[in-house]
């Protein structure tokens, strides 16, 4: 581990894989194929992109002009706000992997995660300059902001679809089908989690009340 950190090539590889994200977003099919099959991507770069996306999302709260974003600060919990992106992402990765693995998907869990993170690249790339830009426009020019903002999301969504198709080596129709199936899988995961937590809390409550009862009788 430490030896790897001392090796200059590690950093070169990291920088190179980070720059590869720019290639991916402009050449999605080719790029995401190479990402896993040619080992052009690294987890370090994927984590960086995810971190930047979350950071930009949180920074937007504070630094976007109030013309576009008004924040009811009393209602903001920063951890939940971050989780509102990170948690669905985690569910998507697990759900997608779990399904595709059963249907000849070639991507492994880590690769699904890596490709998902790479697909998010347009978000920080567009949203950060847009956040700065928002402070220099009036309501009359608000259209520029909303169009660009929408663009970043559409672009990322398109990349998501392309990425999944490439890493699992799916055809177009099968890929779309499994994107929807993944969304359904996410719902199932949420349902099971809810069930799990409510069961656990019921169970815990049972033992707590039993403990209380015993202490009361003693």
């Amino acid at each position: 581990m430490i030896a790897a950190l001392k090796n200059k090539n590690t950093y070169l590889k990291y920088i190179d894989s980070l720059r590869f994200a720019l290639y991916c977003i402009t050449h999605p099919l080719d790029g995401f194929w190479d990402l896993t099959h040619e080992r052009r991507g690294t987890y370090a770069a994927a984590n960086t992109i995810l971190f930047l996306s979350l950071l930009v999302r949180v920074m937007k709260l504070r630094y976007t002009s109030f013309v576009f974003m008004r924040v009811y600060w009393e209602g903001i919990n920063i951890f939940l706000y971050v989780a509102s992106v990170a948690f669905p992402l985690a569910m998507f990765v697990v759900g997608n992997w779990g399904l595709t693995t059963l249907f000849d998907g070639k991507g492994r869990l880590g690769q699904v995660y890596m490709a998902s993170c790479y697909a998010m690249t347009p978000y920080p790339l567009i949203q950060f300059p847009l956040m700065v830009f928002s402070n220099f426009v009036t309501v009359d020019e608000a259209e520029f902001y909303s169009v660009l903002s929408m663009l970043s999301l559409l672009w990322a969504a398109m990349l998501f679809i392309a990425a999944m198709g490439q890493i699992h080596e799916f055809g177009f129709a099968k890929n779309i089908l499994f994107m929807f199936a993944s969304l359904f899988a996410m719902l199932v995961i949420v349902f099971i989690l809810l069930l799990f937590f409510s069961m656990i809390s019921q169970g815990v409550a049972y033992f707590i009340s039993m403990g209380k009862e015993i202490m009361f009788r003693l």
Partner: protein
Amino acid sequence: MKKIIRLIGALTLGTVVLATSSLGVLAAEKSYTYNYDYWGDVQDSPDVYTVTGVYTAEAFGLDINFRNPQGMFVKDNMIYICDTGNNRIVQIERIGTKQFEVARIFDSIQGDTDVKNLSGPTDIAVSEEGDIFISDNGNARIVKVDSDLNYLLQFNLPVDSTVSPDSTFQPSKIVIDTAGRVYCIATSINQGLCKYEADGTFSGFVGATRVTFDWMDYIWKKLATQEQRARMVSFVPTAYDNIYIDHEGFIYACAGGMEEKDLDSGAAAAIRKLNLMGNDILVQNGEYPAYGDLYWGKGGGYEGPSYFTDVTVFENDIYVCLDKNRGRLFGYDDQGNTVFCFGGNGNMDGYFRQPAAIEHMGHDLLVLDTLDCSITFFTPTEFGSLIYSAIEDFDAGDYEKSGESWKKVMALDGNYDLAYIGIGRSLLRQKQYREAMDYFELKYDEDNYSRAYKQYRKEWVEEHIVVIVIVILAAFLIPLSIGKVKSIRHEIDIADIFRA
């Protein structure tokens, strides 16, 4: 809209923090005067009005107590009270802040008419010339008399194909315009206001409320048979509850009992400002529509939206609506922003049991309580007067003075949103764009902010035009020149003469 944004925020974030803050909001409603901020949170406010006195018939020096008084009219210093239950009209003159003199009490009129005694008068209006119009409900007429109560004219049941000639005319509220035309609300007539020409002829209905209906009901109705349809509720316009004619001749009409969802979606309006054509021209630029309280939860035995039973309009275009559901007064400015909310149900001074009518005398407010048989007089506090002078100075074009007043308002109440926007607007007029932007930003006024920012940006560009040109030139020239230098160097490197 913002309510929705907040709701989505609360749902996605689902925080405990929000839950506790909304508890705080409920606790804050104890304050007598309050206001809603940008987010719709209740903000306590200093009192805008204070009670100068609550006057019953006894306090005015009358022999018989009021019984079920319904209507009130104020002209200069004269207060006309329709003592409906006693079939009389009491005219009281206000000679000092707390001094009153009974000018006249009458229960009958003279002159060329068969029916001389009044019967359950519900409203009264007095023209500039001194002619008195009385909505003589029990006698099924609106009667016009001169200042000495001599019969002049009467207005009867509208002659219209939609009104059955056999039905009784039950006029409840009337207003008159400067040309002597009469607009009246009559019970069981919901086509709008009945409009009469000065000579007494009925000339049509104006300003019916929009018909609101449920899509589900509509579909059911389409599927139902003739007999079933007859038994269903029909979609009819809501009848108005009260009207007021302002100094410019526009009629403010309020209607209560709206469906909550219609108010929220904007399908129904609690208050409308009608022009001559009967179209609603009320400006609703406030953060929330002018329908009183924003939260309609059950509490203290009251539920549902505010029920506006009367409205009065000041000369500065601020209109005050009277909510008989929770006994509150809501003031809105000409843009539809909430200026103040205060009041409540109860027996203390400044609280009401069943308020029925509101009028103003200068900046003072008078509220008639049907059940309590009393009139409550309110006068603006220092805080209230500052707000009024700030608004009036701004309308008069004295922006600097208006800004000063708003600053004083802000010093008294830092949670008063209109003060920030007021200061901003006055700074904007004084061309202090940068400062104005800060004030607008604090209270999320994006339109005024953009107006200020546009000017500020223009000024900034004009001031820094030289720097901007240099930077743009540099951005082009430096890479160009670097390329040039490189190519020259390259040529030197490969040139034959330097080769050994």
